[in-house]
Structure formats: structure tokens, C-alpha cells
């Protein structure tokens, strides 16, 4: 919303600089985004016509000599209304003007017209973009200073304001003037809205029916007969042009002017064109058609509210008028509508029709029900002034939403309770008075009964009034204090997913870079984690209004994001990469409930085990056990024991992936990325990936943990070598060794297949640590345990002991 400083001065004395005003408004809640001095009309100056002579070669053209201060310039002029002594806007070569016929912007160049050279131009309003009037040149008041730049003469300072959605009253010049008045401790001078009612009673002209009172809380209308539709006075044209509004005619201009001034959209109907002398506010019929003022035919439906007569719709309520009831030069009786329409209806209608207007923007913010009447009175009095005619007696005011206005009780205690400020009722009332609130003394000397002024529809509660008081006295007056109340009981379980934070820290410590990827993803990318380009998990949740195909679905896995990030960095010539993401995946609910949001960890690594350097050529490629080692380290840091079992996860190379199992529950996978998947992400080399369900892990991490006493007694170490069938996994062997209560640790230190043992067999060399918590183990005890272990192994696994 833009507001002119000159116009603001009509209502309030402004002695502060534009910057100071902007600062005050911003602090009080109306942000000034920009202060602009008008700088249009470059190379146009105020000139004085000093002589007019006939053109030697053309009857209809004349030669005008114009004094522009520094010099006198003779130009060719076609306008008939030019005469000596006039002050005119004079465009010099290089000025940008609107072409009088086509309306396009042209750059003025010196020319020869019928043999006489012309190095400038006396301009019409249309050429300057002030109005559509191109009949003759624009004539300025006599006191216009010759030589002054036209921009400066006409010019002004504009505030670009960001009005918050609650302050529809500030979408008006008076609204902003009122804020400035309150912030500078002044009173506001409102325009005089009194006018004479000399015509017949309005009842004899028109009746108004609101068919759907929910959608039209109020409808006011006034009528003037005998108006002269014509050009607006210059001041009116200028003000509208400053707002980018073209002057149409005096009646339409006044409705627009009052809309800018009061914030209430108005509409003028040609009364003679209202069939049945009746206004009906109703929902449109299905497929009802209306030609709007912008020249389009609109097809309406019952969600749209229209203003109709007894035969047809004549306007879309709050959005745009119809072409048929439009004002013409012959119009002599006008009906001025000043109404309030349901903001949701206007908003939806405007969206559905793709039709926005100054009116619809204002209505859809929600305007005060009490605004139509004062705005109508102002429009009537201004219309009588600029277009003449007789106002009908009285006005129409149909007000189905009329409510008793109850004052709000505000106590000093409430102001203090919310703001901490100690103010007495006198101080509070004084501030509210400045904003136009009426404060009455209540029986309680600590309380005021506050009536809300007609332009505010955002004030309902004492808290709303507290904000009004505090924003005017200034938020700076509130001190800063520390929270002093008792701390709430600490609830560790409510905290940020603990294992997520811990896992991220652990992995970063092990050289993994954290990445964050989008929650929204394409179906295509989700399918790429399968070697056959199929969805691995459930069908992901889809957006109803995606912005792009790349961000259409909620991810059900972190894999595509992490692999894409890996691919991106591989392309940057990084061969050795380790990265991970922790975050939510979204598993849809079949019943239409919210999806299950599960927290996952996904990591990927590729390249060599070490970085190449002068110590080490870095030629050792990663393998499955590098990835597994990292998983084991993470689990160890979380004090968890994992088991691993061959996995059939489709993203992994068959036979080269493992499920991570804790307490019999599958919590993730680790393995080599399927080469087809790697290819679909354009990844080079072998990639390893691991994934863990952090929600499940949190459950185990949160479990009770007990201290294990450290044994004071020395232990014993024995090596054993077991020869088993190739198919027997080491995990089985280890399990049976660990089953012995004296065994504290089992370490595999060699795996052998070859000549020294039979074909089809392999040998594990295992170092076993024995220890007792309560005594020093004797050789005999250890030997006995070792024999038990061997017996168990040979019984279960058909092993042979090797010396």
C-alpha cells in the first residue's frame, strides 16, 4: 500500500522528516518498506506561453514561444486552447511521453513539422499519463513557477507500507494519517462530509434486498440526480494518477478517491439502467453470465455474490462492476453503493474468477461493518461538489449484521499483567483517545470501558487494547527481565530424538559429512533405489499442489537423497566420500490419517580406505567390512550389540548386504550398493551404504543401563583354531564360544582356506579371553572351559580342532 505525504497533510500536521515518520510507523506495527520521492516526468518543466503565432505552412498548426526560465523555445503546437500567458507543462527533447493516439511510451526527439523545426512539446494530460484527456494542452495554475521541473511541481513523497492483515483500516490515507496523528500526539482533521439533501426521498427511487445476509453484512446506498458526468478537476486527477489510477470521469474518480481516502470500496451505478428500481444482493445462478468493466464475459456460479436488479446481475459484489450499468456521459442519476461483503466470499470469488481489483483486495482483508456509512457520506458530499446534482433525501442502510457494540473493560492490572507496564487509567485512556477509542470511567477506578471506533474490526479483547496502548507508548518502554518462575519438571523423553543427535555426532567424528536433503522428492528418484526401477517401500504420499515434479512426493526413504548428494560430489572429482543424513521419512497411512514419520539414518561411502598421500598411495579400495566396521562402531558407541544376517534388500548387491539385528529386531541394513542402482544415480565405483531406524534404536538406547564391575583378577588368553565347512558363518562359531560365562571377549585373528586344510573347509583362528569376577583363574579351570567350548562346537557345528 502506497501513501502520499502531500495527501496525508490534508488530515494531519507533519513536522517530522519522512524518515522519522517511517521510523514511528514501523515501530508501531506499520512497516514502511520504502520511501520514494516521485521522479517521473524527467525533462518536463513548467513553462509559460509568451507568444502564439500562426504556422506559415499549415492552417491548423501554430507556433508557440515558451519561456522555460533558462531560455525561450519556439515549438509547433496543434492544440486550439493554447494562448499567451498560460502556464503549461513543457517537454524537452529526451522526455518520455505517452503517444497521444496509441498510448505507447515514446521518447521525444527534435523534429521538423511542415518545414519548421520543433525542439520540444507542450503536453496534454494524456501525453503525461495523468488522464485520458488529449483534447488540448494541460493548463497549470497561474502560480506554477516557470522553469521548475514538472516532477517537482507535481511531485510528492510516497511511503510504501506493509499493512498487516489485521489492519484493513490502514489500507487508506486517513487510516495512516490517524496513526501518524496518534504517534505524534495530534488530533486528526477529517474532511467535512455534510451535504444538503434537496431531492426526493431515496425510498421513492430504489429498494434494496439482501437475499443472503450471511454474505452481505451491510448495504448502504445514496442517490444523486442531475449530475453532470465529465472530467474531474485537476487535483483529483493528479491524486489518482499518483496511485497509478487513470482518471475516467468525475463520478468514477470520486468513488476511487474515497476508496483510497477511507479504505471503503464504492461503486456507482447508472440508476436508469437498474431494472425494477430494485437492488438485490444474491448468489449468482449457475452459469449466469456478466460482462465486467474490463471487457470480459464472466461465467458465474452460486459461490459468487452478485448485485442484481430484478432481471439480471449488474455487478460482481466487491470485485467488479458490470459493463451494462456503467456510467456514461449521458448518465444523470447515480446510485452510490457503499457496502460490506463477506471477505471469504470475495476472496474465493476473486480467486475463482482470476479477477483482482482494488476493491476485491480491500474486501478480502475484511473491512469494518461500520465503515460504509461515513465513506458514503464523504462520497456524496464530494460528488455534489465535483459533479453537481441533488442528493436524494436520506440514504439506504440495510444492516443485517448490526450488533450492539459493547465496550471492552480494560483495567490497569491487565495492562500490567501482559506488558509489565505500570500505567494509571488516565494515561491508558489518553493513549486510546489518540487512536479514536472512547474511554468511559467505570465504577472501578482502575478500569475503563473502551468503545471501539468504527474503522477498527480487529479489537475484541482486553489483550487487543493492551497492544494498542503499548505500541503507541512504544515497545522500548518495556524492560527486559529474565524468566523467574519455577522451572518445569525436566522430561528427558520429550527431548529431541536422542539417538539422532548422538548418531550424527558419532558419524561426523568418524569422518562422515552430514548432508540435508529435501523431504519432497520425485517418484522417479524414489524408484531409482531399486535395481528394477520399482518402488521399494509403500506408495509415497503425494502433494495435491506440487510446485514441480522434482518435489511431488514425500520421501519414504533417505537413500535417494543421500545417493544424489554422493553423485553430485563425485562429479566434482571427489572420489573418496563419506556422507550421511539423519531425518524423517513419511510412511503413508491407508486410512487417510497423518503419515507415520519415522526417523532414519542413511550413510554412503565410496572410494579408497585412506586418502592417497606421500605415506600411502591410497590404493586400498573399501569393502563390505569397512562399512560394517563403521556400523559396529556406531552401535558400540550407543552401547548396543548388533547381530548381522544376510539381507535381501533390493538396493544392495545380492549376497553382499546384511541386516542389522538388535534383540532379534531388524533395525537396518549395511552392504554394497547394487551396481544397477549405482548406475541409475550415475555413481562410479563401488558404493557402500548403511541405514538404521533411529526411532527403534532410541528405544534400545533409552533402556536401562547397569554398571559392570571391572574384575580385579587377572584373566587368561587362549587361541583356538577351528576348521568348519565353508558354509558355516563365523557368527555361529563366535556365538558358541561366547556362550561360556568365563569368556569376556572373542577376537578373530585369522581366516584361512588353502592347502593345509581339506577342500571345502575353512579355518578360523580365534583368540579367547577368559576372566572371572571373583578369583584368579587357574590353568586347570581355563583348560576345562576350553574343552567344554570345543565339545559344544563339535557337537553343533561339526568342527575339527586344529593345533
Amino acid at each position: 500500500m502506497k501513501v502520499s505525504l502531500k495527501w496525508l497533510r490534508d488530515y494531519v500536521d507533519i513536522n517530522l522528516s519522512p524518515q522519522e515518520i517511517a521510523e514511528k510507523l514501523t515501530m508501531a506495527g506499520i512497516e514502511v518498506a520504502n520511501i520514494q520521492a516521485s521522479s517521473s516526468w524527467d525533462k518536463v518543466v513548467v513553462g509559460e506561453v509568451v507568444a502564439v503565432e500562426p504556422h506559415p505552412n499549415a492552417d491548423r498548426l501554430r507556433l508557440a514561444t515558451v519561456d522555460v526560465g533558462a531560455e525561450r523555445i519556439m515549438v509547433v503546437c496543434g492544440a486550439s486552447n493554447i494562448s499567451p500567458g498560460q502556464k503549461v507543462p513543457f517537454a524537452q527533447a529526451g522526455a518520455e511521453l505517452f503517444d497521444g493516439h496509441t498510448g505507447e511510451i515514446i521518447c521525444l526527439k527534435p523534429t521538423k513539422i511542415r518545414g519548421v523545426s520543433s525542439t520540444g512539446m507542450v503536453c496534454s494530460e494524456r501525453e503525461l499519463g495523468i488522464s485520458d484527456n488529449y483534447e488540448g494542452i494541460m493548463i497549470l495554475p497561474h502560480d506554477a513557477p516557470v522553469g521548475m521541473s514538472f516532477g517537482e511541481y507535481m511531485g510528492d513523497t510516497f511511503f510504501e507500507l506493509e499493512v498487516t492483515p489485521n489492519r484493513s483500516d490502514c489500507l487508506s490515507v486517513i487510516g495512516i494519517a490517524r496513526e501518524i496523528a496518534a504517534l505524534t500526539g495530534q488530533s486528526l482533521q477529517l474532511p467535512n462530509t455534510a451535504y444538503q439533501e434537496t431531492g426526493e426521498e431515496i425510498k421513492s427511487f430504489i429498494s434494496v434486498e439482501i437475499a443472503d445476509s450471511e454474505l452481505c453484512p451491510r448495504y448502504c446506498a445514496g442517490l444523486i440526480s442531475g449530475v453532470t458526468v465529465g472530467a474531474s478537476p485537476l487535483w483529483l486527477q493528479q491524486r489518482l494518477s499518483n496511485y497509478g489510477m487513470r482518471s475516467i470521469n468525475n463520478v468514477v474518480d470520486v468513488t476511487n478517491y474515497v476508496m483510497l481516502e477511507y479504505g471503503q470500496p464504492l461503486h456507482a451505478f447508472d440508476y436508469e439502467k437498474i431494472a425494477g428500481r430494485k437492488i438485490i444482493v444474491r448468489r449468482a445462478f449457475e452459469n449466469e453470465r456478466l460482462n465486467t468493466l474490463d471487457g470480459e464475459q464472466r461465467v458465474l456460479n452460486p459461490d459468487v455474490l452478485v448485485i442484481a436488479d430484478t432481471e439480471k446481475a449488474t455487478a460482481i459484489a466487491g470485485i467488479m462492476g458490470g459493463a451494462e450499468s456503467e456510467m456514461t456521459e449521458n448518465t444523470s442519476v447515480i446510485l452510490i453503493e457503499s457496502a460490506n461483503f463477506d471477505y471469504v466470499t470475495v476472496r474465493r470469488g476473486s480467486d475463482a474468477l482470476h479477477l483482482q481489483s482494488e476493491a476485491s483486495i480491500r474486501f478480502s482483508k475484511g473491512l469494518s461493518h461500520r465503515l460504509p456509512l461515513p465513506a458514503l457520506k464523504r462520497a456524496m458530499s464530494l460528488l455534489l461538489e465535483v459533479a453537481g446534482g441533488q442528493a436524494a433525501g436520506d440514504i439506504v442502510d440495510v444492516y443485517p449484521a448490526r450488533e450492539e457494540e459493547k465496550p471492552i473493560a480494560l483495567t490497569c492490572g491487565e495492562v500490567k499483567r501482559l506488558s509489565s507496564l505500570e500505567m494509571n487509567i488516565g494515561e491508558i485512556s489518553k493513549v486510546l483517545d489518540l487512536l479514536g477509542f472512547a474511554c468511559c470511567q467505570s465504577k472501578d477506578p482502575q478500569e475503563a470501558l473502551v468503545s471501539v471506533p468504527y474503522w477498527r474490526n480487529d479489537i475484541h479483547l482486553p489483550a487487543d487494547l493492551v497492544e494498542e496502548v503499548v505500541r503507541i507508548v512504544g515497545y522500548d518502554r518495556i524492560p527486559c527481565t529474565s524468566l523467574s518462575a519455577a522451572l518445569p519438571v525436566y522430561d528427558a523423553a520429550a527431548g529431541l530424538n536422542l539417538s539422532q543427535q548422538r548418531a550424527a555426532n558419532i558419524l561426523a567424528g568418524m569422518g562422515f559429512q552430514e548432508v540435508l536433503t529435501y523431504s519432497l522428492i520425485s517418484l522417479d528418484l524414489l524408484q531409482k533405489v531399486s535395481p528394477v526401477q520399482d518402488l521399494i517401500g509403500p506408495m509415497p504420499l503425494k502433494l495435491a499442489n506440487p510446485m514441480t515434479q522434482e518435489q511431488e512426493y514425500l520421501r519414504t526413504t533417505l537413500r535417494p537423497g543421500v545417493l544424489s548428494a554422493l553423485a553430485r560430489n563425485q562429479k566434482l572429482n571427489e572420489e573418496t566420500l563419506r556422507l550421511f543424513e539423519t531425518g524423517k521419512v513419511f510412511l503413508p497411512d491407508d486410512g487417510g490419517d497423518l503419515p507415520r514419520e519415522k526417523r532414519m539414518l542413511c550413510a554412503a561411502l565410496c572410494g579408497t580406505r585412506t586418502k592417497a598421500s606421500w605415506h600411502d598411495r591410497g590404493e586400498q579400495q573399501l569393502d563390505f567390512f569397512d562399512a560394517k566396521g563403521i556400523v559396529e562402531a556406531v552401535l558400540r558407541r550407543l552401547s548396543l550389540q548388533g547381530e548381522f544376517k544376510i539381507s535381501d534388500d533390493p538396493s544392495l548387491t545380492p549376497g553382499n548386504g546384511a541386516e542389522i539385528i538388535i534383540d532379534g529386531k531388524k533395525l537396518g541394513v549395511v552392504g554394497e550398493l547394487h551396481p544397477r542402482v549405482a548406475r541409475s544415480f550415475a555413481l562410479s565405483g563401488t558404493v557402500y551404504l548403511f541405514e538404521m531406524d533411529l526411532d527403534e534404536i532410541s528405544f534400545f538406547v533409552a533402556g536401562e543401563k547397569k554398571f559392570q564391575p571391572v574384575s580385579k583378577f587377572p584373566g587368561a588368553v587362549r587361541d583356538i583354531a577351528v576348521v568348519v565347512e565353508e558354509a558355516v558363518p563365523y557368527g555361529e562359531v563366535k556365538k558358541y564360544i561366547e556362550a561360556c560365562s568365563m569368556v569376556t571377549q572373542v577376537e578373530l585373528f585369522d581366516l584361512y582356506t588353502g592347502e593345509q586344510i581339506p577342500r571345502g573347509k575353512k579355518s578360523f583362528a580365534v583368540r579367547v579371553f577368559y576372566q572371572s569376577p571373583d578369583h584368579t583363574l587357574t590353568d586347570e579351570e581355563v583348560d576345562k572351559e576350553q574343552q567344554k567350548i570345543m565339545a559344544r562346537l563339535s557337537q553343533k557345528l561339526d568342527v575339527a580342532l586344529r593345533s
Partner: protein
Amino acid sequence: MLEHLEELYKTALDELCKIENLADLELWRVRYLGKKSALIQLLRSLKTLPLDERREAGAQANKIKLSFEAELSEKKKILDEFSLTACLKRENLDVTLPGRQVFTGRLHPITQAINEICAIFNGMGFQIFEGPDVEWDYYNFEALNIPEGHPARDMFDTLWIDADRGSKARLLRTHTSPVQIRLMEQKRPPLRVVIPGRVYRYEATDATHESMFCQVEGLVVDKGITMADLKGTLFECARSLFGSERKVRFRCDYFPFVEPGVEVAIECLSCHGAGCHVCGFSGWIEVLGAGMVHPDVLKRVDIDPAVYTGFAFGMGVERIPMLRYGINDIRLFYGNDMRFLQQF
């Protein structure tokens, strides 16, 4: 016997003199003081000797043993010192040669910022709470005083799951504020929490706009909470994040679920308040939206606004590293280029 001892003593000491390293010294120890050494054997066999011989031989052997032990310890000291000195006599290394490489990982700058913000508020007694990214219209809008059609909905361009609107329509939360409602439905005052999380907007992406970003929400509800507490708490937060010298501005602003509403801005980091393109020539940069919890919001979750008051705030996380490090394009955060990520 005694002569024999005498000879043993001499030979041993001669040998000891010639020893030049710790390994030989150990061999010497085993030879002369070990379990199987002549001396120890002799001491063991003393009881087989007649009493008068036993006394003299015993005294002599023990004297020799003590002397050997003393000499051994002395020699060990000398050798230790010698080897240490030898150890220190080495060529200088080329210390400019690179060390063996260790992989370095880091947390993402956004994670770091969230952790930092949470730590600041943890220090002020705030707990952490989280809520879902996919929300009902009710929590994201209605319960926060933004019913359908409300003009404030313009502040949030929403990504919807369901095409049909209504309180049971699913959407991607546009802010972390719905978690305020979820929290207050579950817990009673006193409340003091921060809520980090991702939020989503239907917004074309450019250098300053992302369709996904992170926020940290905060909520305090108790008896006697005022705007002064809001100012004090957020002033501390802004100072912790941007330095204690930084000016902080509190101005009136509007959010439908608070009343009065507050915007917190800090003095521009790049122009120090003079005005530049970073701050839109205002000298200030908005970092937080805040306000006193709206009475209607409290009522909706059955907390009596006549008894309790509270304040809430929300801040964008990306802004913080952007401002601090002068990052000029928000898209860098989710682009995951290592050359960017490994700077933080």
C-alpha cells in the same frame, strides 16, 4: 666355597662393566641373580651346610647378592639415561611434510545452528519438543486463529496433501507453531520449550527463498509471564547468536496467534545500521516473530487465560548462518556441495 664366591663376584662385576644395553643387562641379571644362578643356588643350599660354615658363607653370599642388586640398579640407571640421550640425538624431521590424513566430518551448518539455538534455550531452562511435518489444517491454521478464508492465510502459501479443504485436510506445516497446540494439549503449565523442525511453503525457489526451511519455535506459559520476560529472553537469544554488542529492536507486528505481537530485529551485520542491500536499506534485519500467546489459543487448549499468560516466538534457522557468514544464496544449504559444507 668362599674363594669360589670371590671369583664369581669378580667375574660378574667385570662382565657388568662391559654391558652396553638393557637386553644384555637382563641376561646378566638372569645369569647372576636368576633362580638358577650359582649365587641363588648357593643361598638355597645353605641349610645343607654345617652350622658354622653356614653362617659365614651365608653372610658372604648375601653381601654379594645385595652388592649385585645395587650394581644392577646403578647400571640400569646409567643405561636408561644413555638410551634416552641416544634417543634425543636424531636428525630434524621435515615438519612441513603433511601428516597422515584423517577423514574429517562435520555436522551440516543448519544442524549446527539448531543445536546452538537449542543450547542457548536449554541454558535458560527450556526443554526440547517436536511435532510432525505433515499436519492437519486444524493445528497449522484453525487452532492458531487462522480459520479458512482468513486474510492471514495469505502469509502462508501452503503445500497440501489433500485437495479438499477443511480442518481435516492434511498439509505440510507452514510453520512450527502447530506444535505449540500439540504440546499444550498434552501438558499443563508451567511450560518452557523450544521446538525445532522443518517447514514448507509453496514458494518459487531463488537466492532468498526456499520451499523447505527450518524454524525453531518457542513457548513459555505460566502465571505472571509478561512482555518484559519475552523481551528479556529474546534479547538474550539475539545477543548469544549475534554478539553482545549487537543492537536489538522490538517492534509491533501481527501474527494471528499472539496478542500483542512483536517482531525482533537486529542491527544489520553488514552495514551496522547504515542501510545496505542486505537489510533492504533499513539498517535492521528481522530475525524473530513473537508475541504474547493469544487468549483464544489458550482457551482452545483449556488453559485459563485469566490465570495464565505466556509468550511464543519463532525464528528461521537458515538466516542465522546466512547472516553470520555472509552466505548469499539459501539454496546452497540443500545443494550439499562438499566445498560448501566443509567450510563450517
